[in-house]
């Protein structure tokens, strides 16, 4: 962190005239501490920003009085590229804006294009898509949770979570060959069928994960230090959350029971929800105030378990069959425009696509949940202690690739 003092003179401590006499006979001086505003430049290269983001904070002593996020250190022109490459060629770029949840991005983009094309997706493909998206949600929350612990000074959980994540990545590698940028969910289905034995390995992963998950809860969620540092910190009331357009765990942390998978279901989630196979965890204010950092982390941690339940539902119901609809190599998407919002680990991931009937899109707009969720920092950082700023920023769980696109 580099800091720049705004004015040159030093803070002064002067003794005020009054002296307070306490009952016990001890005397305490009332100090009139005069401070001056200081601008603290947080980032862009700072380990706690989870990428390259810069926040200009104004601090009065220990209290933050203003915060201004500066973005754009990773602006990679994804939307412009969408207007220049063919529909199928754009798929790899969707991996790269939210690189922690690439499967979900593939899914969102494919669904938007499929909505225009009106193709029917084979049922097995839908199942595999759901499994992959939910596994990826677990992976993303693992990183969010692990690095959050890291920000607050707990190094061990981070290593533990990477251990499980490494297994999950190996699973993805088996099914599509890549560890991070999958491009596996294609327009019309998925790229290939799951290799033999993959589904049973996913089952084993679920079994192991359920045990490990309890470990994380013991290690971090109820850890006294962790609770002290996150409860009552960075409280987002419901109306502020709605005003800023927050979605995902940020919104649910404030106690709003809204999840696109349940409330505006897409693909198979309708069936799964009607089967009562999963629940939507919402913040309860258990350790502090409703909508504080602890609640948001709690929602994420509980969600991992719900994802496991969804994966199990799919594993029980999956049947053999084709995995991709008949899609031509050079895709011509019928003219029109469509917006599809899906529940990404961070919130509503929207894809707005416009086509004029050609091979190349007219507009591919990405509504990144991190971008929207980040804006709330301007409102909740002022008034917080500087030491809590890290806790608050970490709890928003942003991916800079997505805020900047």
């Amino acid at each position: 962190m580099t800091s720049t003092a705004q004015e040159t003179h030093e803070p002064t401590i002067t003794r005020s005239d009054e002296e307070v006499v306490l009952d016990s006979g001890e005397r305490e001086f009332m100090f009139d501490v005069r401070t001056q505003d200081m601008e603290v430049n947080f980032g862009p290269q700072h380990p706690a920003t989870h990428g390259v983001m810069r926040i200009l904070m104004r601090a009065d002593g220990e209290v933050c009085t203003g915060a201004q996020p500066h973005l754009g250190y990773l602006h990679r022109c994804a939307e412009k590229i969408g207007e220049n490459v063919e529909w199928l060629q754009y798929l790899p770029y969707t991996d790269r804006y939210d690189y922690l949840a690439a499967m979900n991005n593939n899914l969102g983009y494919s669904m938007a294009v499929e909505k225009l094309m009106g193709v029917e997706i084979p049922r097995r493909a839908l199942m595999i898509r759901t499994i992959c998206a939910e596994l990826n949600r677990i992976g993303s929350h693992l990183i969010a949770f692990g690095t959050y612990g890291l920000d607050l000074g707990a190094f061990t959980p981070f290593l533990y979570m990477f251990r499980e994540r490494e297994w999950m990545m190996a699973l993805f590698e088996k099914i599509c060959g890549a560890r991070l940028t999958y491009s596996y969910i294609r327009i019309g289905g998925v790229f290939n069928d799951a290799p033999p034995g993959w589904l049973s390995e996913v089952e084993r992963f679920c079994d192991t994960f359920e045990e490990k998950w309890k470990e994380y809860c013991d290690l971090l969620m109820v850890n006294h230090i962790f609770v002290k540092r996150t409860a009552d910190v960075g409280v987002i009331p419901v109306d502020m959350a709605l005003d800023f357009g927050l979605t995902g765990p940020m919104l649910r942390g404030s106690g709003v029971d809204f999840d696109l998978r349940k409330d505006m279901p897409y693909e198979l989630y309708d069936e799964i929800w009607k089967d009562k196979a999963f629940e939507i965890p919402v913040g309860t204010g258990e350790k502090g105030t409703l909508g504080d950092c602890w609640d948001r982390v709690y929602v994420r941690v509980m969600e991992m378990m719900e994802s496991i339940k969804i994966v199990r539902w799919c594993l029980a119901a999956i049947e053999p069959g084709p995995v991709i609809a008949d899609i031509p190599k050079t895709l011509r998407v019928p003219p029109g425009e469509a917006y599809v919002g899906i529940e990404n680990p961070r919130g509503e991931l929207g894809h707005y696509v416009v086509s004029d009937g050609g091979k190349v899109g007219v507009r591919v707009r990405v509504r990144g949940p991190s971008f929207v969720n980040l804006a709330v920092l301007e409102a909740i950082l002022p008034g917080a202690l500087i030491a809590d700023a890290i806790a608050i920023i970490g709890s928003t769980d942003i991916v800079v690739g997505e805020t900047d696109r």
Partner: protein
Amino acid sequence: MDFQGIHDRLQAIQAPGLQGADEPREPDPENKKDKGRFGDPFVLVDAKLLPAFLQVCRDDERLNMDLVADFTATDPAKDDENLWINVQLLSIGQKHRLAIKCMIPKANAVMPTSVPVHRSCQWHEREAAEMYGITFEGHPDPRHILLPDDWVGFPMRKDYEFPEEYHGISCK
């Protein structure tokens, strides 16, 4: 509510600036050139009255659009005279969506800001402003958001030419 219901409701409460609706249709079998329109229905709104429209949508208890999910602009074609403003509204309580489209001329791309109604528009508008060269009148913080402060041109316009170099770093 489905789109028809929302549109009827908008007409019933005389939402300001409502200009009509556009719904997807199948291609006309008579006319070979017509390829139809697919995707989502949307309502057309006068750009000058967009903030008022958003406010009505938010405050009406049957529409109850409490979230601006997305706010962006589109440049439909190089020789098109208009830019589009695309807004996606989402209702948490009623669980429905509404897509809004406004047209503003490229030559005079000025429209009022929606930040007083929804603060979530603030960053979206900043992005649209720098990418498309739209001026949002009354915006509280009209700086660049993603691009460097001294960036020239509006990259998302269709006629944008890629820069040769920036601060001594070649782009070729």
